[in-house]
């Protein structure tokens, strides 16, 4: 595989991102390494080809946001909004991630090996998120679709006003948000969980060690008691 190196100490980030936004035919299958990210914001945002990008250090805000098709690996930590609104592809953070990781992500896979901050997976719309550590408060708020696997603990208000996303937690949950409740894991959901653990590099983790959470569906259905109001 052809590898291209960019050093952000000498190359402006805008030029690197413009290169990564180039025609897919020239990028598919290529490997790009970004050295000295030093916490810069917006690295590898808006990719739309099957390029493999490695960020060798800590990334700032919105790294790999709006990702499509690409595989982005961040070897350090990620600032707020990593893989925000991802559509497809694979984003892997080897360190920790700050607030709102994977917010509104529609598709693809986000793996965070460390902890994630507050509001992880907020308004999740179909992507899969696996966090090796713990997540902060208000995670999976209004999460609509997708699977959210937490190997550690969850903070306060997990899954507040959740729709149909499936949340699996191995550790403890400080508190559940409104309309979020414990679920019994079906054979079908267990398979989703087991497959995702393998896909994310956590094949040694027992799928039966998780508690599933989801929507009690009392908030978003029309309630017949309200019929008189219309």
């Amino acid at each position, binding site marked *: 595989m052809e590898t291209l190196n960019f050093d952000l100490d000498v190359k402006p980030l805008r030029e690197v991102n413009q290169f990564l936004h180039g025609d897919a035919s020239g990028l598919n299958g290529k490997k790009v390494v970004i050295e000295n990210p*030093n*916490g810069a914001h917006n690295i590898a945002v808006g990719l739309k080809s099957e390029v493999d990008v490695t960020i060798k250090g800590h990334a700032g805000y919105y790294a790999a946001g709006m990702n499509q098709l690409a595989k982005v690996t961040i070897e350090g930590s990620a600032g707020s909004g990593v893989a925000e609104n991802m559509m497809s592809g694979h984003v892997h953070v080897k360190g920790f991630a*700050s607030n709102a990781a994977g917010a509104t992500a529609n598709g693809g896979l986000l793996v965070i090996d460390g902890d994630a901050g507050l509001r992880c997976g907020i308004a999740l719309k179909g992507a899969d998120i696996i966090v090796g550590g713990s997540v902060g408060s208000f995670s999976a708020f209004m999460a609509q679709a997708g699977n959210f696997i937490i190997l550690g603990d969850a903070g306060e208000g997990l899954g507040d006003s959740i729709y149909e996303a499936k949340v699996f937690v191995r550790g403890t949950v400080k508190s559940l948000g409104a309309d979020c409740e414990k679920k019994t894991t079906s054979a079908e959901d267990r398979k989703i969980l087991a497959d995702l653990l393998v896909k994310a590099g956590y094949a040694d983790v027992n799928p039966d060690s998780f508690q599933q959470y989801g929507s009690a569906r009392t908030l978003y259905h029309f309630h017949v008691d309200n019929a008189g109001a219309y």
Partner: protein
Amino acid sequence: MCGIVGLLVRNPKLRDSIGELMLPMLIGMTERGPDSAGMAMFTAPVAADARKFSLYAGVTDFNWTKLGHDFEKHLSIKATIEPKANHAVMTTTLEPATVKIWLKEHYPQLHLLSVGQLMDIYKDIGTPAQVAERYDFKNFKGTHLVGHTRMATESAVTPAHAHPFTAGEDWCLVHNGSLSNANSLRRKLQHEGIEFETDNDTEAACRFLQWRMREGDDLQTALNHGFEELDGFYTLLMGTSTELALVRDPYGCKPAIIAEHDDYVAIASEFRSLAHLPDIKNAKVFEPSPKEMYVWKL
């Protein structure tokens, strides 16, 4: 927005270069706070019976020599004055209450920024790079420091509104965030006899902690009261004679990142400001949890 930086140097060999280590941290926060900057620097202490007074004149042609002469003439005691642009650090053994009254009476145009045995404060309008240049931040020597870059959102851009704020000797605070109930807090605290210098929301938080500590709270207890009464978003970084302390609001709305290394502890709003620090690759870099107090001692 606003940016905060803090640095506590554990390795005594690096303390003479704390200014150089800090400068890229402060400048790294320019995008978060381009309109003013400030720095509280903890240096070697003055003699046990002396105090340093950080003064701000507002004009660069202020006659500091005359201030020294007047002080000695009126009070029959010496004061050494080290001017830097429109700031000066005055050191004297006269007790602080008398100095404050004398300054108010004879030099009402001067702002007293801080009193202490170790802490000097410099704050002014301008980009962080301009302010750092004006007060020669690069050549600071000392043990620890607390810095701020300001993007004003709720009150005027003036040197007095810039951070850090102080609430007692060798005690300072910087803030990233905004408070919604600063006015009601101020009114409440004024009833308690707490004096304010500005209408800045950070000053309200600072005076709130000052009031709680006056009532006997330690810092942790004062901050616990703060969680109940400060309505808004905040990351607060505080400096005392021997420590740095950090706290984030319960919703984690404002950022902070910490690098702990054998040689130093560095705190900033974003990693961008820590990237240049020596051997940062081997530091423990982490994000502080909301509603938890972190303290690093010298």
